[in-house]
């Protein structure tokens, strides 16, 4: 199987969308890479940032270390309230071990680095809150 990252993204989306706390705040506004223009806030974005594949003698020959950036995005400059509630759910949901998704085994996920950013869109403050994650996966 070569399209492992597509399966990892599928797992990530369904995991985030299936959480009652997140969906009570963002509804179905969970997007890969970028949100459509005109969408409401807050929302959740996740994006593939990079990866390295390691050839191994075992583990079906290949182990991928994949970096994802997962973050809640809201209008305003505050990281408190609903934005923090959503971002607090990322670790409990994503730090898993030995999950098999459609032929791909996610061996484990590590929290790599916190992420916080504040900038503005046409003068309106925008806040990003989340983390970088390392997903270690291989063909199941």
């Amino acid at each position, binding site marked *: 199987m070569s399209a492992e990252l597509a399966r990892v993204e599928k797992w990530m989306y369904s995991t985030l969308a299936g959480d009652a706390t997140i969906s009570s705040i963002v509804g179905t506004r969970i997007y890969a*890479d*970028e*949100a*459509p*223009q005109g969408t409401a806030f807050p*929302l959740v*974005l996740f*994006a593939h*940032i*990079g*990866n*390295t594949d390691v050839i191994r003698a075992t583990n079906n020959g290949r182990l991928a270390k994949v*970096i994802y*950036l997962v973050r809640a*995005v809201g209008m305003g400059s505050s990281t408190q309230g609903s934005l923090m509630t959503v971002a607090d759910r990322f670790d409990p949901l994503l730090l898993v071990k030995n999950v098999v998704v459609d032929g791909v085994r996610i061996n484990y996920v590590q929290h790599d680095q916190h*992420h916080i*950013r504040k*900038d503005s*869109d046409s003068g309106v403050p*925008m806040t*990003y809150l989340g983390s970088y994650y390392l997903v270690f996966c291989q063909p199941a």
Partner: protein
Amino acid sequence: MAFSISITKNLIPQVRVAIIDKAEDAVRDAAHYGRDYTRSIAPVRTGALRESFYVNGPNQETDYVFAAGKAKALNPSAHIVPELRAAIVDPKVGQLRDQATGRFTFPQTIVSSAVEYSLYIEEGTVFMAPRPILRQGTLAAEAKFKSDMRKVADGY
């Protein structure tokens, strides 16, 4: 009458210095490799982003002024951001100290961009997908650093 002479020479300090020197070389080489890799995959419109990547460290080595100047020349409207600095030697104690935390540390390098908009390309915005290049460069540098340090550990 039998006798013997035993001569013992303690070379541990020299070995330690040699390892630190080689480790510093590995840090420097990995940083430059990562910077060059980042440049090679950078998206190009004016060329300012590609030329904006610099290496600071180890110690006080830097090519920030050159990178920032070239980026500004290629895109005069680009906002130039201040240089990030790696650890430098504290002359009072002769040891490296982290510039951000003040902690004593080992040789460091920082690879970064002198233009502000590199952040938006690297991480994206809410309506624009990330096009990460610096992290890809970091992954390449990490692989080179591990390979080089393996040689240091093996005594090359």
